[in-house]
């Protein structure tokens, strides 16, 4: 794999103006598939959630999933799109073994939703409007696993396995118009846009919206043009950008790479690029030109989808509150300051905090854990905080252990690390690591006796009423118990022992 030259981001921005475009694929969480009655379930044994339709057996016919249409209309409405009164499916034809019919049933000329927009809030509170060209329905392909080659790549593989469980899962592809004027905020906007789409489909309840499972997948188009020029440059399309951080990094990297290509006087190649999380670079995929011939034609096995205005209005009435209103409400409910709340949003943990509160934590506790502990760890691990694997229930349990005096705050962070290392539940880790605060008075009393004996003068001062001297004895006890004693209980016991009123 050759390494492409890059310019520094700052230099690239001095010379060029980026234009972005996104195709975000959203997998819908319908019970059954787009065109068959097979279950739409993630993670089952390969080729178990398939029937004759998903396998493209001879003679089969597709039947459109009504819930998928509803979900698509809801997405369109949430993206401020117009909803087509009537729309059709088409066949996109290409031979590839992950596509059992050797064509994908998709929408082509007349998408179900078109001409929308989404207002994106950037980290400083400014609003950037992204225009939506269309949102159309299609079916997902199966999943290929290449065996025997290096790193699961098709090059050099001995054979490939195909799992059709994903074949026919309903997808909505959301396509933006070219996004101009983002300037040096392009990477940030990219991340914020995908985050906003993810938030919308999650709130609508139409997708599980888990990027790590591929429920939301982003292809990022980047091109550069010299400042002041109107005509767009040649674009690259980076595929497989499957976390919010990766979206930001990929756009930044492609800007830097394009700038270096343009600086060298070479034309940018119009192509598909593959994102590599490990190296944070892209590599060239296949050359893609607008002349790719998919031989689209209207799907003759399906009749047009007619979305009556009454139906659309019924669906509009079911839409949850828009993200901006929801944020306002959550901030008020949680009592966060503007700054605190913006930090939460920018860190991408608003949903997680909401879930943690729903699981039983207070707003303060939830924020303390997510912002104070988990966000930093996620950054170190280079993943989105939600992908780190911390469950809301874990935080509630950790907090309860602290509140009950079983462990102290310092231990709790240790337990969190244990949870992330997969050692078990917080309670199990406390047990395994022997972290419990010493609460049996027996060992404590022994340690207290020893500390008092070691510092008789201090003991005398306390008896004489100089209570502030107690710190030295408490410190001795804590040292002797390697920090596992509950300091407050130690203080009580010392006073009791010396017969002094606290």
């Amino acid at each position, binding site marked *: 794999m050759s390494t492409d030259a890059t310019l520094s981001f700052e230099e690239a921005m001095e010379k060029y103006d980026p234009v972005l475009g996104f195709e975000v694929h959203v997998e819908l969480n319908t019970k059954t598939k787009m065109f068959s009655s097979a279950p739409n379930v993630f993670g089952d044994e390969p080729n178990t959630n398939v029937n004759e339709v998903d396998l493209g057996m001879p003679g089969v*016919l597709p039947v459109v999933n009504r819930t998928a249409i509803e979900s698509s209309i809801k997405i369109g409405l949430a993206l401020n799109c117009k909803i087509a009164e009537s729309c059709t499916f088409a066949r996109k034809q290409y031979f590839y*073994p992950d596509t*059992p019919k050797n064509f994908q049933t998709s929408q082509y000329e007349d998408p179900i939703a078109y001409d929308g927009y989404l207002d994106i809030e950037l980290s400083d509170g400014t609003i950037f409007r992204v225009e939506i060209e269309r949102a159309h329905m299609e079916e997902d392909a199966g999943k290929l696993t290449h065996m025997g080659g290096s790193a699961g790549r098709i090059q050099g593989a001995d054979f490939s396995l195909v799992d059709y469980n994903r074949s026919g899962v309903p997808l909505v592809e959301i396509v933006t118009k070219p996004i101009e004027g983002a300037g040096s905020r392009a990477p940030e906007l990219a991340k914020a846009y995908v985050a906003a789409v993810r938030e919308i489909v999650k709130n609508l309840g139409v997708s599980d919206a888990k990027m790590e499972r591929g429920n939301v997948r982003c292809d990022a188009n980047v091109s550069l043009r010299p400042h002041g020029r109107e005509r767009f440059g040649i674009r690259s399309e980076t595929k497989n950008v499957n976390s919010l951080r990766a979206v930001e990094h990929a756009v930044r990297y492609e800007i830097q790479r394009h700038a270096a290509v343009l600086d060298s006087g070479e034309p940018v190649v119009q192509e598909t690029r593959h994102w590599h999380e490990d190296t944070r670079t892209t590599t060239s995929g296949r050359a893609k030109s607008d002349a790719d011939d998919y031989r689209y034609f209207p799907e003759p096995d399906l009749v047009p989808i007619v979305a009556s205005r009454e139906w659309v209005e019924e669906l509009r009435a079911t839409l949850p509150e828009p993200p901006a209103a929801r944020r306002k409400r959550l901030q008020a409910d949680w009592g966060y300051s503007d700054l605190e709340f913006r930090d939460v949003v920018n860190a991408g943990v608003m949903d997680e905090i909401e879930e943690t509160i729903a699981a039983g934590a207070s707003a303060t506790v939830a924020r303390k854990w997510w912002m104070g502990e988990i966000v930093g760890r996620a950054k170190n691990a280079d993943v989105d905080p939600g992908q780190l694997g911390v469950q809301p229930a874990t935080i509630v349990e950790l907090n309860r252990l602290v509140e009950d005096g079983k462990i102290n705050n310092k231990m709790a962070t240790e337990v969190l690390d244990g949870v992330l290392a997969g050692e078990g539940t917080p309670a199990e880790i406390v047990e395994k690591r022997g972290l419990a605060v010493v609460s049996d008075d027996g060992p404590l009393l022994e340690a207290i006796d020893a500390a008092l004996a070691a510092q008789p003068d201090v003991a005398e001062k306390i008896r004489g009423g100089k209570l502030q001297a107690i710190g030295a004895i408490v410190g001795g006890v804590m040292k002797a118990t390697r920090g596992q004693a509950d300091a407050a209980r130690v203080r009580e016991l010392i006073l009791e022992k010396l017969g002094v009123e606290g």
Partner: protein
Amino acid sequence: MTDTNELIRLSAAQLAEKLRAGEVTSVEVTQAFLDRIAAVDGGERGVNAFLHVNTEEALAVAAEVDAIRAAGGAAAEELNELAGVPIAVKDLIVTIGQPTTAGSKILEGWHSPYDATVVKRLRAAKMPILGKTNLDEFAMGSSTEHSAYGPTRNPWDLDRIPGGSGGGSAAAVAAFEAPLALGTDTGGSIRQPGAVTGTVGVKPTYGSVSRYGAIAMASSLDQIGPVSRTVLDSALLHHVIGGHDPFDSTSLPDPLDDLVAAARVGNVEGLRVGIIKELHGEGFQAGVENRFNDSLELLKEAGAEIVEVSCPNFQYALGAYYLIMPSEASSNLAKFDGVRYGLRVLPEDGPMTIERVMGATRAAGFGDEVKRRIILGTYALSAGYYDAYYGSAQKVRTLVQRDFDAAFTVADVLISPTAPTTAFKLGEKLNDPLAMYLNDIATIPANLAGVPGLTLPGGLADEDGLPVGIQLLAPARQDARLYRVGAVLESLLEAKWGGPLLAQAPELAPSIETQEAK
């Protein structure tokens, strides 16, 4: 018990009547047809209508019906009218428990894991399935010579073609190997074989019979329909297989008018019958034209009014059909790639990539006619050519539909010869695709417009003594009208001939193997 030689010559309606009356059992009937198949289908000069004979299952279903009848009571009462009457199924329609080949090497030995909707309905009606009938590969052809498993022979003359693509179903019924069969009709594959074998066949209104489980050639044109020896029998079978199917999105939601009642009543009094100017005369064999005129005379005598209509855009129908059909076929046949089922052929040398395995499989698995249509269709859908070819063809399709609309304002049904000629010799047109395509000139417009069409025997041509087919066409959803008119014309013609036309067909000699076995 009736003599088996008489039994196999009875119509499905007559067999059903005898079964109900207890004069014969379904096992006897089914065995009679299985024996007939054994006698005339195999060997050098056999009819070769069947690709697979389903002896065990057919007899088991027959025995089940007999048991229900013998037990009597509600279960016997509730039996379908055709329960126990055997049927043959075109091998383009998938069946559990029997191979489905589509007449192609690429599906040799493949067993479907599911039943077509029409097959489910046959099973629900407890009709024993005798087996799967021969066809042009993937239903592409007008002679059944494009089958990968050898041609079917016309029972009227074993050196002639039985029509196509459903030559197997038509020949099976004409040779008394089955009283009924299922066919599929994309451009005439039920009606043209019906015409050249002296049998009845119906292409129902598009969407009135589910296509689920019929291996698609051209989805917007394909339609499953009945093949039989009488108009009433087709109506009875159409009734069993028709009706809405949630597995077919193009299936019509509402039921058609009562087809069986229409066939039983039969009436042409005051009916306006339209002769399509463009579908007779020039290009049609003289003997075909003569028999067509006979039918017009009979209808006129029976009280029908004969009018002439013009469908000027029909002259473009064949051209449009040969763009739309291959375009859809090229897409529908893409799934046959050796990856998931059917034949898989590895490239003889060079790298073993998936593209090369798919290529080798398709090169070895598809015959020339199929490849010809895939290439045509792929070209017609290519960027830069789509508008000129597929787009223009769709416009012609709309114009053909408008011609029908206009014609049906002045006529209740339209009439034409079903095929321009009688059965030609095996091999005669095999290397002349355009001549082969012209066989469907009169049947294609109905597929383009989605309207129903029926063929019934119109007599024998003077020149060659071979059957001529008469085609009736009705507006969409008016299939009942076809049965009503068809039944009248059939009875008038049979009165003239003194019995069914098939009674005039030559006796088939038992095949050589059968003789040796005896």
